[in-house]
């Protein structure tokens, strides 16, 4: 199923890191028309404590504004690069910051909505992928303990591999805990996973 895209940016706070010029005026005015609240930071100085009060960051990639950006915090936000110079040295920094979209200078009102829409949706997709990756990593790390529990169930209880695995899976599901935790419990490690929850109590 296709996920519907974010297309209304009403109430989002945009941090614009850019020296004053006509392009910045156009940017500020257009973002305002799109329903965003605009916070201007005269590059290269960033307003202190500003990091958690904005939802999207637009930065001038030409004037080194990005050097003051906290890379860690920036990764948590959709980034839009405002690009004038197409010299690879500049563009390399845009890549390093993982800008999710860009606007070419001279800044026109046309193109800003597109850049915003791409950045916000691309960023949301990246965040989803990151979460999925974390979950997969966690599961991968837990594979060893699951295999160990399966082996133990096979030797101690005489189950087939399939039955042992299925037993672990079902027990984990009924307790609503990760299979890795159930495996640890079966091996006598880790906290008690709690009583079985009946199927009837499961939410639909």
């Amino acid at each position, binding site marked *: 199923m296709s996920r519907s895209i974010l297309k209304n940016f009403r109430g989002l706070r945009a941090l614009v890191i850019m020296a004053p010029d006509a392009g910045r005026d156009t940017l500020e005015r257009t973002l305002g028309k799109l329903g965003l609240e605009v916070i201007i930071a005269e590059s290269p100085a960033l307003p202190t404590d500003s990091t958690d009060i904005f939802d999207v960051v637009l930065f001038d990639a030409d004037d080194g504004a990005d050097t003051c950006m906290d890379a860690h915090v920036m990764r948590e936000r959709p980034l839009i690069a405002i690009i004038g110079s197409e010299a690879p040295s500049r563009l390399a920094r845009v890549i390093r910051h993982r800008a999710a979209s860009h606007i070419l200078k001279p800044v026109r*009102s046309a193109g800003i909505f597109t850049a915003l829409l791409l950045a916000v949706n691309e960023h949301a997709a990246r965040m989803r992928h990151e979460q999925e990756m974390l979950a997969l990593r966690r599961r991968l790390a837990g594979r060893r303990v699951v295999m160990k529990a399966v082996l133990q169930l096979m030797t101690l209880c005489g189950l087939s591999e399939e039955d042992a695995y299925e037993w672990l899976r079902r027990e984990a599901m009924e307790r609503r805990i990760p299979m890795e935790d159930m495996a640890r419990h079966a091996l006598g490690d880790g906290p008690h996973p709690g009583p079985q929850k009946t199927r009837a109590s499961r939410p639909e």
Partner: protein
Amino acid sequence: MMRRLDLSIGLLFSQSGSYQAVSMAMRAGAILAIEEINADKDAPVFIKPAEVDPAGDLAGYVEGARTLLQDQSLRHVIGCYTSSSRKEVLPLFEKSDAMLWYPSHYEGFETSENIVYSGAAPSQHIIPLSRHLLKNFGVRGWMVGSNYIWAWENNRILRDAINAAGGSVLGERYFPVGETDLADIVRQIVADRPDFVFTTLIGQSGFVFLNMLRAAASAAGIDQPREMPAASCSLSEAELPLIGDAASGHLSSSVYFSTISSPENRKFAALWTPRFGHLGQPSADAEAAYVAVHLLARAVARAGSDGFEEVREAVRGLTFNAPQGRVTVDPDNLHCWMRPRIGRSRTDGAFDILMEHPVAVRPDPYLIWVNEADDKYGPDLRLIK
């Protein structure tokens, strides 16, 4: 007496090509306003128009804009009908510090500082039409359109509204502009028996479609106008004479109909009929062109200059008692506050007005301020702020 300001403007309307019926009506609306202002001894400006005919061809628009802006150094041009022509000439206006006065309803998602938009934005055409259809006819819709941005975007908005209402889109089909081989799709639609048909077919495709739909429905024993109406956001008085037998009974969402009862509209009709009656009754796009010229003249008078920046600042918040009622230019996005209306076409080339929004609606080209209504008929026009 105050000295009258000379105001030179350009007109960029196609007088031939696939949408000439509408664009000639638009040109007529602009000419009427120019003649009206020039004939008025007390008017603060005297307008001298220069005209280029792009003949419905994109390259013709670019060439025309270049002639008007660069060769003749004009700062203000009234013109364009399709979005593609507007997008094509916009960079020239930006480069020349000139203003395009764009008098057509369109699909939104644009706010240029070089364009004043006197036609309806989506918050003023498709949103009110969606609600009207879902409320009065049902939630099962069929969508058929010409394959370009106007159709795609309107269908997207209607589809969202139908889905939010728990309804279903029975079918959605697009055809090349000018396609008239529509028998299969008409057969399919009549077999599906939707609650309404939303059409964004333009020009000849649209006329042929409405006739075929009417014929097929009546052969199947369906009272098409009542039980399965065809609705659009563009059908106007300029096109009704071209549809023929099946011209009546179609729904249209528009900020202007020739049947609006007001002194301003009577005056407009009195100017129109002797001069341009051969083009049909006055239509929304003709009126929007008429409004655009009046707004331009007023903004120039207010600014005391025809300079681009001065006029742009002067037009913000400007009001004009137009044939449709009071029109106000939004200070922010240079689109107009107007009242949405739903009409149903008649056999005499005019529309009965079925619904009229009580107040002017904010132009919302990006649909930022449209809210989900509490009822089940899709997004509403209620505004926050």
